[in-house]
């Protein structure tokens, strides 16, 4: 770590634009460049894609930072800028100390050459001198677990072996700042664990980590801080749990919307065969609209324990004497979580008048565990004959303050007596 500086990474008003591939630049010829007398053409606004749009932050030495965001949000671009692979369009990004970028492992492996020789080449690419590699050679081979293949040409390796060797070299460069992009998701489970332990051990020695991952659990587990990027902008910066919760919520919101749109469009197609699976019944009464109100406002994600109301609008075509309304909650894989109807609740039907009616089912505290849920809504006779039965009509997502297993998240409290000690924090 250089010169006692408190920050390992400083990012100041960083901007990175990519050229839109469709702008025709790719087909540009030297001949035309010479004719136009412009060798390096500036980016016109219409052909620039802002991958990183004015981001500033600092990472103190020793901090583990997770970068989260959807695909195309700029996480990997930011990592490549930090690793010095890409150059910023404007602004600065400064990293102190030796950087190991585990972005694509085994950069510079040559397929015709043995694993042994490739270790030396890859190590040199990552900035090690020959003697340093010689010193670490045995550790590298042992870590990779490829001792018996080390003199075979790399082209005979499986992709998992390739990644293992690459990771082994990269991790042995003794970096001050470690930049990891999604590489832990390749390779087998046991090796991924070994890598993770190694990373944690390095964090313990005060190294800095910049981790890009789609695994929010991993970020929550090993990072001290999370940055949420969206469309090249820093949307949230803070404690991993808070950032991840906000991120999950946003995803759930957009996913629920997408699901609703999909259902609506499926309905519009009104292909009887297709729609049959999701909707059946005599249609003497028809469900025309369903809304979910969380804490009084229409939304489709909730935090466990919030008040949720299902509001069902029914168009009754002919007056019915025999009727019940039902709501059921299931997981996307089809496990029923909870269901009820007016018949089970003890309402005795007398008359359902032709025209519109609105049915509301209110759960003052819906204690669903974090996850995705699909809601079925039905109008039927108490004997089960359906008037309008609609499956997976509404998608709902839940977030919880802490993780748990299953679908139910009751209020709970731990208490201990006797010699049970917990670390503070």
């Amino acid at each position, binding site marked *: 770590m250089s010169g006692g500086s408190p920050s390992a990474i400083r990012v100041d008003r960083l901007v990175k634009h990519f050229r839109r591939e469709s702008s025709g630049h790719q*087909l540009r010829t030297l001949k035309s460049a010479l004719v136009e007398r412009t060798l*390096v053409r500036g980016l016109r606004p219409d052909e620039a894609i802002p991958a990183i749009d004015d981001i500033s932050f600092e990472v103190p030495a020793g901090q583990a930072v997770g970068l989260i965001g959807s695909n195309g949000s700029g996480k990997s671009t930011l990592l*490549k800028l930090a690793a010095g*692979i*890409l150059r910023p369009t404007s602004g600065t990004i400064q990293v102190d100390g030796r950087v190991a970028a585990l972005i694509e492992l085994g950069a510079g492996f040559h397929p015709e050459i043995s694993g042994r020789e490739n270790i030396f080449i890859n190590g040199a*690419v990552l900035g090690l001198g020959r003697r340093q590699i010689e010193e670490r050679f045995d550790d590298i081979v042992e870590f990779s677990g490829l001792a018996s293949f080390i003199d075979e040409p790399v082209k005979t390796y499986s992709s998992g072996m390739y990644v293992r060797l690459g990771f082994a070299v990269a991790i042995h460069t003794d970096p001050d700042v470690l930049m990891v992009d999604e590489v832990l998701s390749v390779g087998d489970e046991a090796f991924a664990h070994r890598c993770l332990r190694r990373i944690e051990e390095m964090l313990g020695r005060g190294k800095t980590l910049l981790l890009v991952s789609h695994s929010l659990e991993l970020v929550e587990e090993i990072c001290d801080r999370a940055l949420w990027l969206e469309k090249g902008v820093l949307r949230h910066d803070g404690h991993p749990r808070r950032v991840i919760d906000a991120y999950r919520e946003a995803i759930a919101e957009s996913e629920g919307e997408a699901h609703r749109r999909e259902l609506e469009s499926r309905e519009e197609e009104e292909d009887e065969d297709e729609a049959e699976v999701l909707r059946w019944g005599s249609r003497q009464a028809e469900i025309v609209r369903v809304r979910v109100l969380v804490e009084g406002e229409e939304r489709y994600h909730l935090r466990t324990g919030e008040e949720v109301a299902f509001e069902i609008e029914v168009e009754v075509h002919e007056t019915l004497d025999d009727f019940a309304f039902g709501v059921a909650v299931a997981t996307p894989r089809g496990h029923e979580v909870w269901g009820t109807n007016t018949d089970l609740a003890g309402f005795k039907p007398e008359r359902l008048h032709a025209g519109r009616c609105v049915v509301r089912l209110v759960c003052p505290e819906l204690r669903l565990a974090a996850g995705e849920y699909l809601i079925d809504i039905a109008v039927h006779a108490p004997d089960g004959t359906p008037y309008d039965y609609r499956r997976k009509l509404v998608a709902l997502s839940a977030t919880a303050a802490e993780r748990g297993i299953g679908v139910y998240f009751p209020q709970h409290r731990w208490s201990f007596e006797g010699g049970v000690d917990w670390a503070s924090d």
Partner: protein
Amino acid sequence: MSRVLRRLLRHRGLLATLVQRELKARYRGSVLGFVWSLVNPLALILVYTFVFSTIFTPRDRLVVDFGPYGLFLATGVIPWIWLQVSWVEGSASLLANAGLIRKAAFPAELLPVVSVLSNLVHLLLALPILILAFAAMALFGVQTSFSWATASLLPLAIVVQLPGVAGVAIGLSALNVHFKDVRDLLANALTLLFFLTPILYTLRTLEPFPWVHAAVAWNPLTPFVTVYQEIVFYGRWPSPELWLLMVAVSLVLWILGTWLFERLSETLVEAV
């Protein structure tokens, strides 16, 4: 000094490793291995000598003042091959190693220089074969004017040319990333330059054609080849003008090439 040079010097260990990788990978899996570097120039010399002493005989003594024409050809072609292959491979080197520069903070200017240096190794293996061929001629009683004294200038000639050869390769490599027609332009330019350089003929042969003579005399690559003919084939000490010209051309090519690379380098990685 230029940034490119500084980076090359800083990463000289990596440069050496990559040149080794290039050479190893090239000969891996071929039976003769490094022997190919010796066989290729030998075959070249034998074919030229056979063709131009048995099948054709040069029109008159105008073509070559004295000595066997086959060896004259080989003396010019062997260094030309260094330039040509270095530039063709060097210009493609960034695209060929896209994985390396997209995935690691890798000094891209190393790659064209690796092409130049690994081909320089071939040149260094070919030159002794060429000298052996002169010795063999003497054994068979064929008169040559080969001289060990002047031939000892070969390393100096190569050192003087190296910046120019590397500069062109570096510039071309960056151009090739941004402009897809560089490869075709280069192939045509090299063919044209080959005939505009006194490899198949001597400058004196062209004296009856003043325009062509001027074009060849002003071709900046002409001294890059004639210096080999002077010190190996003719056994003469090259004039100070030739040395100065070579130094000047070499430095100008280096400066131009590295300037081009710097200009184009900002967006290099994403364009690869």
